[in-house]
Structure formats: C-alpha cells, structure tokens
C-alpha cells in the first residue's frame, strides 16, 4: 500500500526525519510510536503531501504522492482540529466530505449509524458548529470523518489523545473491528503504548527522525516498548 524510499526532511541544518526504507502492505494496521519530536507527524504530513520532502518520496498504491494527487481518492486522514471546518455542524461536515467521495446524503446517514455509540449522543443533532464543540468531540468528528467513507487507507495522528477513557475503549474496539472486517489499512500514531499495541499488528518506533524498531506485535511487545522508552530516561 505504502512504500517509502530514502525519505528525509530537513529544516535548515536540522534533520527531522530520515527514513531509508519502509513498506506497509495492504490490510496492515501499523502503529507509530515515539517521543515528541521523533518525527511522527512529519512522516504523516509527508505521506499526505502536506509538506514537501527534502529527499526521497512516498508511494501510495503505486503512485508517488508528491507527483500526482490520485492518492486522495483512496486515502482518508485526520491529523488535528485544523483540518476540520469550524463553521459547519458535524452533520454538514460529514455530508460535505461524503459528497466529495460521491456518497449521497442517505448513504452518509446510514454510514453514520455505525458511529452513534462512539459519539455517545454528544455530537449528532446538536445544532452546534464544530468550532463550538469540546476538543474531545471535535476529535471524534475528525476520526469519524476519516472512517466514514470506507477508503482502503486511513491515517490517524494520535487518535486517542484528548478522548475520555470510555471513548478510548470504544475507539479501540472500533478500529479493531474495521481492520478485521473490512481489510482497511490503518496508520495510527500514539503516545499510549497499551492502546497502540492492542490495536496494531505492527509497531514502528521512531526516535530522533529514524526508525529504531520495527516489529510485529506479540504478547511481549508492550513490555519491550516500555523498556525501550525507559532507557531514554
């Protein structure tokens, strides 16, 4: 699904990301962990062509994202609240992005049904603009916006942050369900080692812009990750 070659990003003298090679096969749920400044968001931004790389390129489904915009058709992402449209209500926002992916209003409404639990009655039918929702609820809108249209690739930057504990558990279940039932590819970054090991079947650790670990998830993974971050103290 995703192929990365000799990708680097420099700001002046400082190299913030330097990845020699990374391949993410279709259907995989990949977790990206690392401390602040490790380059997680930079990597996602490069994958989404939000910033231009210094060297190298990212291929999404065979086409280079820096060269053509075809990837947008099969990729959905939520990075942060900046990517929401604050003056729309949640429903209007969903209809807007659904419409961009050729979904009718009815299809959007049906698709939203699946997420009613996730919203916990706090988002839909509120007659509130997104900008007036709480940070947590804005996050929910963004996540559902990315899941709604059933694109084969979903990129979520720190989806667990800012959510209440119940919603975190709901999100975990939701992601696992979607991954197993639909065969979607997920890229998820997180600071919560437990959640990410529970959801993902492969964990990549970024440290100072480089990949330092890349393993399939096993029963020991959580312990190993905790040990790794302990060493950084």
């Amino acid at each position, binding site marked *: 699904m995703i192929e990365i070659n000799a990708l680097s990003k420099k*700001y002046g003298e400082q190299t913030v990301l330097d990845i020699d090679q990374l391949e993410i096969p279709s259907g995989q749920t990949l977790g990206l962990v690392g401390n602040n400044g490790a380059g997680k968001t930079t990597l996602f931004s490069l994958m989404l062509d*939000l910033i231009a790389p210094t060297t190298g390129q990212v291929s999404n489904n065979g086409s280079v994202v820096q060269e053509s915009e075809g990837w947008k058709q099969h990729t959905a992402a939520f*990075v942060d609240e900046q990517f929401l*449209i604050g003056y729309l209500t949640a429903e209007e926002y969903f209809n*807007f992005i659904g419409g*961009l992916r050729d979904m009718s209003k009815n299809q959007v409404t049906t698709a939203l049904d699946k997420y009613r639990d996730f919203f916990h009655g706090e988002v839909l039918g509120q007659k509130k603009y997104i900008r007036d929702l709480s940070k947590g609820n804005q996050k929910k809108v963004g996540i559902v916006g990315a899941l709604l249209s059933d694109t084969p690739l979903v990129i979520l930057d720190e989806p667990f942050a800012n959510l209440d504990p119940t919603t975190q558990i709901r999100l975990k279940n939701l992601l696992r369900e979607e991954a197993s039932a639909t065969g979607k590819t997920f890229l998820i970054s997180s600071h919560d080692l437990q959640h990410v090991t529970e959801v993902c079947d492969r964990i990549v650790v970024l440290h100072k812009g480089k990949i330092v670990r890349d393993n399939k998830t096993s029963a020991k993974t959580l312990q190993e990750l905790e040990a790794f971050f302990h060493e950084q103290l």
Partner: protein
Amino acid sequence: MLKRFLYLQQKSFFRGAGVATNVLQKILRGFVWVYFAFVFTGLAFIAFHYPQEELGVDPLVHANGYVLYGFVYWLVMRYFFQKMPLVHTQPLLVLPVSKNSIIRFGLFKTLFSFFNLGNLFFFIPFGVLLIQEDYTVSGVIGWWVSLASIILLTNFLNIMLNSIDRVLFIVASVLIGFFALQYFEVFDLSAYTAPVFMAPYNQPLWALVPVGLLAVSIRWSVQYFKQQLYLDNHEKKSKKEKHRSMELGWLDGFGRLAVFLRNDIRLIMRNKRARMTVWMGFAFVFYGFLFMTDIYSGAVWQIFVGIFVTGGFLFSFGQFVPSWDSSYYPLMMTQNVPYREYLTSKWWLVVVGTLVGMLLGSIYAFFSWETYLAILAGGVYNIGVNAYLVLLSGAYTRTPIDLTSTQKAFGDKKSFNLKTLLLSVPKIALPMFMFYVGVILGGKLLGIGMIAATGIVGFALRNVVFKWIEHIYKNEKHLTLEAYKQKNA
C-alpha cells in the same frame, strides 16, 4: 466542485464573526458599484463626444493616449482596495479535492471584483458608440479584447503584489521611475504606448499578444499558489526571518506598563501584517502631496490632510485594537492583566505614531505654513480625540486577526483595507465639519485653533475617558472572547 466551494463560502460568510458588519459592507460595496457603473458609462459618452466635437480628433486615438494612465491608476486602486481571495484551504488538503481546483476557485473568486468587471460599463457603451460611427466591428472587438486582457492581467499582477514583496518593490520602483521621467518632462511613455494600443484595432490579431500574456500570468499565479499550499511553507519563511531577541530594557522606565509595551512592540516587529501598519503610517505622511493639487484647494480639505497625514498609524493599527491580540485574547483575559494598562499601552503606541507623523509632516512647512499648522492641529486632535475613538471602535469591531495569515496561501495580507477606511470616516468627517464651522465664523486660523483646542481638551480629560473606555471593554469582554473563537471562518 464549484458548487461545493460555494457552499462552504456561503456557510462561512453567514456563520463568521461579525455577520452584520459583513452584510453592511457588502451593501455599501453594492452602492459603490452602482455609483461607479454610472460614472463609467458617463465617462464613455464624454470620452467619445468630447474629443470629436470639441477637439476635433479621433476619439479612439484620444482614448488610447489615456489608456496607460488608466491601467496604472487601476492597479494602484486595486492594490489598496481589492480584497484578496480568502480560502480556508487546510481541511481540503487531505480530502479528494485537487490542489488545482482549490487554486482555481481562489483565483476565480477574484474575477468578480468590480476591478475586473467595472470596466465593462465603460467599454461596452464606448464600443457601441464607435461601431455606430462606422468603426470596424472586428477592430473594436480586437481593441476591447486587448484592453480587457490587460485589465485581467493586472488582477493577477495585483495578487502577486500582495503576496510577494519583491514584486511589489520592483513594480513600485518602475512606476515611480516612469512617473518621475514624465513629471520632469524627460520622457513621455504614453506617447509611445498610444500607437501600441491602436494596433489591435488596425489588425485584430494583435489582440492575441495580451491574451497570451494573460494566460502566462494565470499560469504563474497557479504555480505560485501550488507551492504555497504546503503547510511547512511558513516554517521555511520564518527561517529566513531571523529570530530577533528584543529585550527592550529601555522600556523599564514605564514601570508595569513596560510589560505591555514590550509585548506590543514585539507584536509589531515580528508580524508582517502588523509591521505593515508602520509602513502605512509612513506612507500616509506623503499622502498629503496628492492634496496639493487644485482640486483640494478648498479650506476644509486642509484639515483633512492634517488628520490623514498624522493618522496613518492610528487608523491602520489603532482601529484593530484589541483584534491584534485575538489569537491569545483568552490568555490575556486569564492573566493578571488590568484593562487600564493594556489600553494605555496601545494608546501610547498610537500617540507615538502620531507624534512621529507630526514631526515628518514638517516637510510641508516648506510649501505652506498654513498646511503645516493644519497638520499640527490634526495631530493634536488625533491624540486628544481620535486616539480614544479608535480604542472605542476597537471594542466593537471584534474581527479576529490571524497574524499568521500572511504566511498562508490565500490569506488576508493587508493592513489597510476598505474596512479600515469605513471605520475612519467619522474620525475624519467630524473635525472637517468643526473646521468648516470655524472658517465660517472667523477664518482658517480660528478653525485650526478650534481643532487643536478640542484635541487639548480631550487630552486633559484622559483619566475620565479611559475609565469610560475601560468600562466598555469590560462589558464587551465576553462577546469579544466569543467572536475571537471564530478564527476559521
């Protein structure tokens, strides 16, 4: 796609902060449209009949002599008054919307400006008159297509002027250069351009040249904006702009006020849009020279010059207090920030800006002592009255200013715009009226004296007025906080 963009546009307009002012502005703009539509149509008839009947020359040849001036004038007007396209692009970047269509929409929006369509009110009647008079139809069309292309070309040039400083400096120096050559009668460019504009009438195929240039300018704009759509573009820019540490220790003499002054000075120095207000203040000083011409020889205009010359910074910076702080207004309101000191700091900045204007205005003394006296009186009035009025209107303006917007692809980059102008009208009209009364009662000097005296009285009442303004700011606090939240609109 267009339908979707328009949907967002409409929602953001009606749900943004200050809908009422926005609607009012649109209505006012509509009136201006209608007014100029009539003026242009009238001009077309004059431009046709006057040279033919009074001068006995070919109206088309005569018009071509003025075309160049028209374009330059139009470009300058555009630079100051045409709004730049605002598109909130970030959410669209990860959605299946191609970058080209985002850019196309942004540029498309600019086409509906009066600056692009208004000329039709001149060219259509003028063209019809020409054709009635047995000018060839194909020639008139060729001529018209050329001029329309150049007008559209200046639309894209103006976008570049607003976005890239280098282009602004180059174009400004070229224009000033030719203006000087013409003024000192060294070289008259328009004598050479008149036949050039005649060419597409004689051979309509020449119209392809301006059309081609227009296509090139559109291509450039699209390519430029495509680069701008990367999110880290602003980091690249801020790298160029070196971090300047500013301790500003000399401000300590102001006591607690120094905290605010320091922050305000940093705000102005470190943000392009705020920095532009300082340049506007500087530019306004020279604005008075435009009024040295005969049209404005009426006495009332003198005080207009006085207020304007000293008030550039006051109008472009002062009127947007507290909007400058909008992005962190909630922070300010949760800190130990007494409104009194917050406002006093802004007031001082405006006063210093006005004093500098009065000082620089002394060049007018070489031309006329009376003008300089009017400038001094205008300055005193600005300090004593308008400085309060701008703070007061600021309490109600409540348009959030996004300081980072200059770094966005489609962002508002100007510090002086139509809104500034509308807000300035009462602040200029009031002293003009007062001066007029003074002139009727006892001559110019009395008028100037009255203006200055009003300013001094206002200055003396500082404490009372500040208490009142502070009260209003406190009352408006929650509404202001609410309005500033709507940044994305």
